[in-house]
């Protein structure tokens, strides 16, 4: 990974003004609208949002696995300085696995049930690295040992159904790491797992990526997972990136009213309130995203400007938020009246 002349490390992944569209019979749905972010080497970027916010879509767009008729309609994606969003499918195939590893939610569907995990690992390793069968098998053993599979020699010939859920996800991580990719996209890697196993898998994912300097894009709806694992977090809403910043800042001092409501609506272990803070209404459907700021109908601070003009990401706190509250010239005033009695101090 080269250094830029100004001493700043070149990001592994750089997404600029990404736009994904789904043409339908009635209208063109904009699933991702002007999404921009970077991930530095060794950094874990958490991407959070509710279902339909576009977080998985972002990962799928980066690795070009969008379901047709969805397609990238604008913007650029650069991987280690090389533009990849305009590559044809046959030029993109060698990138998957070799440069971008992928970990999905359900380990049972990402492993082939008909092949032993040893075969699957060896196949993946040999597809990407110049190794013979014996070397690849050695490497598979080392990988399984690294992801914490006990007695890997005896498990190499086991089939996926013979593993428990947590062990399967370890195998999937081993597969994703097999060719030492620069970027790992982990899409809800622990959602299918129990909480006790979740902690093990997250610690593992974080350790192996840090050791290799791989960048991680961690897509999840679980703020707890983000709080523990990510360095920075990007909050998505209705296909747009509405806030991005250091993880502790976004969790403690969210700058966008949506992130603020989201953090306050999570029941915590530390305190107990009679009622949880609730954001009224629901996220708009893609076919009916309001003009201006997509959050304006649910926002307690919204004014006329929010209904007309869409805010860009503006500097806010230690990060950036797409909200006119943070307009440096003419900020919208906060209105605190409609708030519940519950404070948002986390």
């Amino acid at each position, binding site marked *: 990974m080269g250094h830029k002349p100004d001493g700043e490390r070149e990001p592994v992944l750089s997404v600029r003004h990404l736009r994904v569209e789904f043409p339908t019979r009635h209208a063109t749905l904009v699933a991702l609208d002007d999404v921009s972010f970077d991930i530095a080497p060794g950094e874990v970027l958490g991407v959070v949002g*509710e*279902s339909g916010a576009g977080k998985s879509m972002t990962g799928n767009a980066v690795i070009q696995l969008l379901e047709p008729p969805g397609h990238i309609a604008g913007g650029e994606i650069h991987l280690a300085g090389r533009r990849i969003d305009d590559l044809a499918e046959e030029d993109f195939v060698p990138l998957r696995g070799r440069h971008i590893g992928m970990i999905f939610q359900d380990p049972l569907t990402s492993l082939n049930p008909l092949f032993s995990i040893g075969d699957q690992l060896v196949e993946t390793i040999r597809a990407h690295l110049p190794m013979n069968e014996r070397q690849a098998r050695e490497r598979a053993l080392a990988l399984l040992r690294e992801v914490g599979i006990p007695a890997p020699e005896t498990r190499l010939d086991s089939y996926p159904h013979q593993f*428990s*859920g*947590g*062990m399967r996800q370890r195998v999937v991580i081993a597969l994703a790491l097999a060719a030492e990719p620069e970027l790992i996209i982990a899409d809800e890697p622990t959602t299918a797992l*129990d*909480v*006790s*196993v*979740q*902690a*093990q898998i*997250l*610690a593992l994912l974080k350790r192996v990526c840090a050791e290799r300097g791989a960048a991680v894009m961690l897509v999840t*709806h*679980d*703020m*707890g*997972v983000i*709080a*523990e694992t990510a360095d920075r977090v990007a909050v998505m809403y209705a296909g747009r990136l509405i806030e991005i910043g250091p*993880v*502790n800042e976004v*969790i403690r001092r969210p700058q966008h009213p949506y992130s603020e*409501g*989201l*953090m306050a*609506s*999570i*029941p*915590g*272990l*530390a305190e*107990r*309130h*009679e*009622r*949880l*803070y*609730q*954001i009224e209404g*629901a996220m708009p459907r893609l076919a009916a995203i309001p003009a201006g700021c997509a959050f304006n109908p649910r926002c307690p601070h919204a004014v006329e400007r929010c209904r007309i003009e869409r805010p860009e990401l503006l500097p806010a706190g230690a990060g950036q938020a797409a909200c006119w509250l943070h307009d440096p010239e003419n900020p919208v005033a906060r209105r605190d009246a409609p708030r519940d009695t519950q404070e948002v101090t*986390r």
Partner: protein
Amino acid sequence: MSQTQPVPSAEGGEVLLEATDLARHFDVSKPWLNRVLERAEKLTLKAVDGVSFTIRRGETLALVGESGCGKSTVARLIVGLYGLTRGRLVFDGQEISDLARRSGRQSAAIRQRFQMIFQDPYASLNPLWRVGTIIGEPLRFFRPEMSSVDRRRRVGELLEQVGMSAADANRYPHEFSGGQRQRISIARALANEPEFMVCDEPTSALDVSVQAQILNLMKDLQQEYGLTYLFISHDMAVVKHMADRIAVMYLGRIAEIAPAEALFATPHHPYSRMLLAAVPSLEGEGRERTTIEGEVPNPVHPPSGCAFHPRCPHANERCRAEVPALIARSDGSEVACHAVEEGRID
């Protein structure tokens, strides 16, 4: 244990549901021919094996545990979706142990007093029925004398109670979001003014902001109608928000049952401690998340003695041999652990 009168419990509230030594075993053996040819034994899955608890009127008892611990099976035993293999259920002084074998009409009087809310609001509503028909069904069944005009009026009232509009009765389930569908499920459950609701992971399929709305609604309804909840969840933070008392289950048994504040302040059972420590914390720093070693064993072949002993740092010979019973402690909790009983840990 023949009680016809509601018995006042230690804390004053009258006991609404008493479960004694509930057990449900499932036959998971291979078919007869395979057993003969492969000389395989009969296999029994003891999903629930000796679970006892009481629920007082107006309180919320939560069952928590990881997948496969039997919490959902307990819910289904109580509402009579599964028959009991062993044990006894008494609801408000009436024996309901044979509910699963009774026909709907025979048990109508008792059945309409409790209702169940399921986890998946997509699977629990008939997609071919209009919302009004779905919510009106329990009314048609339990109150056949009600005129259709009255029924429509009642359905409208129910929809408004759960924060929807009476006009939604004419729409179909697919027109609603997950949170709205769960509101419809709640409206259906409320139709016959039940006293007791069994809620099996009612918010696990929902986003956090929607979860906050549903949890608040459930609390409001509880206050308004004096409802009693059996609340099943794997999410400790949600349980902390909702429950008065909490039962922690592990492999078909209760490991610890305690008032909510006591459990979160000083969990006694090593499993409860680990479960609490494994919850990802939004606060991030300050509390190191300890990882539990290992995973939940296969319940078809549970470990001998205390089922938790292979993962327990305090296990000794006795734990490997002898199943611990729930023993009451002075702080109002009951713990099934030899180490706690012997004072090896506090």
